[in-house]
């Protein structure tokens, strides 16, 4: 288990899906939003960001976010 908590700030999300692209590319070798371990869903004006059970909190999604919708925080027990 990698050492980050991923903080989601859904109000900042624009739906650019860079997080899903980055995650899928890292773990499948292809840019495939459907295979990402993070899933962004828009409904009306709202947005929900969820993680699948496979997510290992590596933080690549947060690294790819341009909008401060995802932040990674180092877990204390990993320091």
């Amino acid at each position, binding site marked *: 288990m990698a050492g980050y908590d991923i903080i989601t700030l859904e109000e900042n999300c624009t*739906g*650019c899906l860079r997080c899903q*692209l980055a995650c899928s*590319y890292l773990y499948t070798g292809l*840019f495939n*939003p459907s295979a990402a371990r993070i899933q962004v869903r828009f409904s009306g*004006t709202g947005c929900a960001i969820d993680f699948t059970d496979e997510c290992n909190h590596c933080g690549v999604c947060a690294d790819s976010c*341009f909008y401060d919708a995802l932040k990674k925080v180092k877990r204390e027990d990993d320091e």
Partner: protein
Amino acid sequence: MQGGFAGRILHVDLSRRKVGTWPLASNLAESFIGGLGLSFRLAHDYITPGTDPLAPENPVVIGAGPLVGTDLPSTSRIYAVTKLPTSGTIGWCGAGGVTFGCLFKNAGYDHLIIEGRADRPVYLNIVDDRVEILDAQKLWGKGVSETCETLWDEVSGPAGVLAIGPAGENRVSFSLAYIDRSATMGRGGFGAVLGAKNLKAIMVRGTKGVGVADRKTYKRLKTDFLQTIQSYPYLKEWQDMGMLKAFPMVPPETYKKIKKRRLACISCPVGCKDVVEIADGPHKGLVAYSSSAINLLTPLMYGFKDYRDAVKLIAELDEYGMDMFEFFGVAALAAKLGEHGSIQGINIALDDLNAMMEWAEKISFRKGLGDVMADGFSGMINAYGDAAKTYAPALVKNMHPYTGPGSALPWDLFGTMELGQILDLRGPHVGSGGSPTYFAKRPLEVFPKHLKRMGVPEAAISRILPESDESKQLNVGILLKYSHQWFSILGSLGVCARGQINRFYNAGLCADFYKAVTGIPTDLDELSLRADRVWNLYKLLNVREGVDRSRESIPDQWVQAPGFKEYVSETPISRDEILRMIKDYYREQGWDFETGYPSPETLSRLGLESLG
């Protein structure tokens, strides 16, 4: 194919209700880059010269370039090529792909060719290899947003939707298509082309993934590139304000009152699309989605006093699926004809919400005079003859340019977008081809940097920029040639051409990204040559249709006071000066000014002899 390309073309025949796929020929991909360029190439095979734009025989070719679906910034563009009803020319229609482009590539396709006409309303449902032509009776007559929401409600997970509204269904000449209800596509009647096919929407989902040929190089190039973007000092401001940063049509505090969320096309770090919600007044609670808040506020330029009324009207136009500039232009013409007695018993108040809502509905559903107005300026001129010609604004290819005397946007400097209104075969549209003359006047000192970035050769840069302090004239004709080349690169790759994004890209980097993603050997010179080939094929497609230089007439209003002004000196521009720019453009392209055709030497250089 190693990466970038999905490697397949999807073909749908609506008349026969048949669907097929075949491999994308790698030599074609290499020769025409992809996306926009390959769409022109496929259109050359599928469009029969002389076809009526609204006939079943007029095909629609949609393409997503090889970078679409990757995580390179703002690589989500999709393009359609078809014969457009307003101009009667073969034109390109582009849109920020929102989710559509990426999901289309993930479904395993680079291009979609649509032919024929369904015998009743249908929509396409694409889920990877499963492609269905489904009944759309329940959607017919619905607005764009409602159509998208209805389709999204039927599926789980993200789906890209391209849809038309009632204006497209009823073949309004200025109807558009919309992507995910927020991006517009196809000024000149693309909505009508789809409506004439009884095709209400295309929904796409995909799970196949998009690969990269050379991952190591890709990573290196991308890392440096992202750092450049992240360190851009105005990035946050663009993200916060969107296009209002460039066009402050309302004060920031007003925007903040209605700003609900900013939206981005997949992979875009700027996110120029808007969701707004009216916070108070009679339209309280109205939610509107748009390519940009400035679009929603456009009626303020036509005299609306209340920004909330402006949003209400544009939200309605977007539901009907029609172009706001043409709508206002045609309405203004009808109003003048009413004032001068050519049309009896009408009163069109351009600054009144209720009146304009009524006319939007009449046009969309072709009721009464709305039936004539729905055919645009040419419909009005056919119906009211010389009177309509007298009061019509400056027209180019039967459309209302965005800028210039009597146009919506208060911009009177003559740059590549302005000359491009005449010389782009499709006619007026927003876009400079990525050149630095787009709207905000930039000092000449920054031009060399931007021109180099666009891949303009050194020798051409010296011919574009003023020769001396005395002359102070920019050679817009030569600049436009290279703007079209730059636009061909961006469009064929799938990169957004908007100024706030293309400023980060340069042609050499585009060549490097293309090579890394696709594995196709490419350098700057080769990519520039292919881009030239793309734009020349666009020209050839229209030459084959008989589109000649007579379609490049200069509107009188452009050269009469107040008229346009030269970009640098800001002195009034003359017809002769514009004509000289056109000649310079033709010479730089290697096209014959008299016949309008690419010269044999040009076709030979580009390897286009067999298509000429």
